[in-house]
């Protein structure tokens, strides 16, 4: 775990308030595991910055310089003040990072399986390294990726370039299957024997909840990458607790990847 100041090497804007930030951070690039994240803020923010806290961002991809892993990218959607400020940084400016953080996905679970990544929106940021790793290992990986419209599906090309099969859903039908990603997932999974599926999902809570409900009912193993408000990101504030069947767990150190079977969603208590 390091706390470092790193230069921005690119900030590429995408439609619908999304952007990909690339920074030079060899310390992170060399150690990051799929599903891990970093706490990020614009550097030199003064004594009482607004927003005060760093923001959690998954490492989207890693790229080499001079043959060594060096560049780390974040795929970000503007949702509020923190992501808005990150969006305004320019090449040559600096970010403060604390990382690498979190557990990451259990890679061994994917061996010899049909690895199905079910992703909604910006959740895509958490699974590219995962797809890449399993693909390199020669494991079977499929992506079900849903968004509002074709233009919302940032990063789609990167997955296609990997060569993995992609099943796209859009709410407006502008690309692929028209509907929600959860429907796409059911459509897709119905074609494979469930006992071979290893599921990983990331996206809005409501979507992941729907996916885990299906996964549980069909006894499909399912890893979920959850989001929780974080103050520190490294296990000291105890602020990011989520609920599992056993106990509260910290999203930042015990997670962000949890087993869907034992994760307790808000509406689970009502069930």
């Amino acid at each position: 775990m390091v706390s470092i100041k790193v230069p921005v090497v690119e900030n590429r804007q995408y439609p619908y308030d999304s952007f990909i930030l690339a920074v030079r951070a060899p310390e992170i690039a060399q150690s990051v595991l799929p599903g891990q994240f970093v706490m990020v803020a614009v550097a030199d923010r003064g004594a009482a910055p607004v927003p005060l806290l760093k923001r959690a961002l998954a490492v989207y991809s890693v790229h080499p310089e001079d043959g060594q892993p060096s560049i780390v990218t974040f795929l970000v959607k503007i949702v509020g003040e923190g992501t808005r400020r990150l969006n305004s940084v320019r090449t040559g400016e600096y970010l403060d990072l604390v990382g690498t953080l979190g557990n990451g996905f259990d890679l061994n679970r994917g061996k010899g399986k049909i690895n199905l990544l079910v992703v909604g929106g910006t959740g895509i940021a958490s699974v590219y390294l995962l797809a890449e790793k399993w693909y390199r290992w020669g494991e079977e990986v499929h992506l079900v990726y849903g968004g509002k419209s074709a233009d919302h599906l940032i990063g789609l090309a990167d997955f296609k370039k990997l060569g993995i099969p992609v099943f796209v859903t859009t709410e407006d039908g502008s690309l692929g299957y028209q509907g929600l990603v959860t429907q796409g997932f059911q459509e897709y999974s119905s074609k494979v024997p469930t006992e071979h599926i290893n599921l990983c999902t990331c996206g809005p809570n409501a979507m992941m909840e729907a996916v885990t409900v299906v996964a549980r009912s069909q006894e499909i193993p399912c890893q979920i990458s959850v989001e929780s408000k974080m103050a520190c990101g490294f296990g000291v504030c105890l602020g990011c607790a989520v609920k599992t069947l056993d106990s509260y767990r910290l999203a930042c150190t015990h997670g962000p990847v949890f087993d869907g079977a034992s994760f307790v969603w808000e509406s689970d208590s009502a069930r």
Partner: protein
Amino acid sequence: MLPEVDLSVEISGLRFKNPVLTASGTFGYGLEFADFFDISELGGFCTKGLSLHPMKGNAPGRIAETPSGMLNAIGLENVGVDCFIAEKLPLLEGFDCLVIANIFGKTIEEFVALTEKLNPHPKVAAYELNISCPNIKEGGVQFGHDPEMTHRVVQAVSSVSEKPVWVKLSPNVTDITVFARACEQAGADAITLVNTFVGMVVDVHKKRPMLSNTTGGLSGPAIRPLAVRLVYQTVQAVDIPVIGIGGISTVRDALEFLIVGARAVQVGTANFVDPSAAARIVEGLREHCVKEGVSDIDDIIGSFRPIEEGDFVYY
């Protein structure tokens, strides 16, 4: 070579190598920060609040960000004093930095039992009694908002304690000096303040609180002016040392508290924003002293020049 500066301070019979500590609940059990700096650089640190039995804390929805601050309602999740003694304390032996055990109980008996359990352990330098947690139903402000109860719990702990007893006060009171004096009279060796201010954030779409506990404690730069004033007021009301806390992120902030008379400061929320914040402040204090030609930090502590009748100030 920088000139030598004596940053050390004496508080309740303990000598701290510098006046910068880290605040309870923001520094884990100390070990989590080892990746960021050598915690032996600190004057000391306060453990996460310890209870007699492990506590699982509040349900999710534990924090919310606010302008220049954050609310927390962790609900005092902690491993419990036995686990702390068995598993955490041994790992702290190697660090050259004083460990203050922040403790809280639901009853006076629990406070006493905690003290007795920790008494035999030399690595614990002092106790900090948390009688001011706004986020639990029993044992928090129930003690901290009643001077009578404050007196009783402090007296009970002091009478069994083999170490200095610090008392951490709630800022959510009409007159802090009443509580500070109650502590002093009951035998407290130092006062630490402030704990967090009670606040609340509403999710205007869901029309629900952001915190499962509805309210939480406000910390961070937003509260600093409130904390500085309470520390200033308290310093004048009691003779025992006062340790200042609240929104300290920079050496300038720390100086505010020291100048009005705090014998030391604690860094809290800033540890989340920048994990090396406390070490940076130690370094900054040294530089400040050099720049101001001060060879002993004691010359800064309490150096405040009050406004006199007829004074006015342009800046």
